[in-house]
């Protein structure tokens, strides 16, 4: 009983995480055509059936929402996506054809939260020329394929891009401990 994650109840002998139920209900409502009480109730029922039939490991509760940080994060995300769209194809033709023009770079994040690791790797997919190819969860390390990182300066700039993106994610969603790790020192 003590081991239960926060905001959870027991239903039919299973631990049900209420944030997960709320999230699944929201997705149900987005899929449905209109908002109604019946829709909400059937969404909650469907979510409960899902989490009881397919038990989910306890989620890391390390998630807070900071509206100002989120606005900055979302704005930058949209800007990066727009930048990645057009010129990327052309840029890729240039750098992809010459040998040893790209690198796979390992970057270890400063925070140790599963959520920040996941959100950062998703957010990185918006950056032009960077792609997460592997993740090591135990150490919080992301491995990125970087287009055009053909010298040490290029590799370093990729590292800085990743850590900056992590800082933006933490300022949007991080707990106090995460923020302390980001603000405490710029180097891990």
């Amino acid at each position, binding site marked *: 009983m003590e081991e239960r994650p926060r905001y959870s109840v027991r239903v039919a002998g299973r631990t049900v995480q209420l944030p997960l139920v709320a999230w699944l209900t929201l*997705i149900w*409502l*987005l*899929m*449905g*055509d*209109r*908002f109604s009480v019946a829709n909400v109730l059937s969404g909650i029922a469907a979510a409960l059936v899902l989490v009881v039939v397919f038990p989910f490991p306890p989620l890391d509760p390390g998630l807070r929402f900071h509206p100002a940080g989120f606005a900055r994060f979302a704005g930058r995300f949209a800007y990066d*996506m*727009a930048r*990645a*769209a*057009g010129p*990327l*194809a052309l840029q*890729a*033709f240039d*750098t*992809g*054809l010459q*040998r*040893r*023009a*790209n*690198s*796979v*770079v*390992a970057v270890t994040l400063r925070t140790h939260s599963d959520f920040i690791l996941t959100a950062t*790797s*998703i957010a*990185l*997919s*918006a950056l*032009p*020329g960077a*792609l*997460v*190819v*592997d*993740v*090591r969860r135990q150490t919080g*390390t992301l*491995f990125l*394929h970087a*287009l055009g*990182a*053909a*010298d040490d300066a*290029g*590799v370093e700039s990729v590292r800085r891009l990743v850590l900056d993106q992590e800082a933006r994610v933490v300022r949007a969603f991080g707990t106090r401990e995460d923020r302390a790790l980001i603000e405490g020192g710029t180097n891990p």
Partner: protein
Amino acid sequence: MSLAAQLPIAAFLLVGASASIGAGLGLLRLPDLLTRMHAATKPQSVGLLLVLVAVGIRFPTGEVITTLVLIALLQLTTVPVAAHLVGRAAYRTGQVRSEDLYVDELAEALDAAAD
């Protein structure tokens, strides 16, 4: 619909479709798996998002917008996961030639783990 109202819709559709064509061309033209993955993920996502924006402008009702938001959310969150799995599989089956890369810290990490 007036012409002025249709213009932005047409613009979003055209730019979105061109981004998707760019993704397809990239897949054909790029030399190796990892660079092709860039083309398969980024311009493709942007293309889809722009087409979704066009649909949202054309049918600005709540039920359409919520479905579009759901599509965008699922696209943005599943593409990196798929890319990660393709990258993992490529590395572990020897499809990535480290000597073509300037540095390859993943190959180094995998070697260290194997020792």
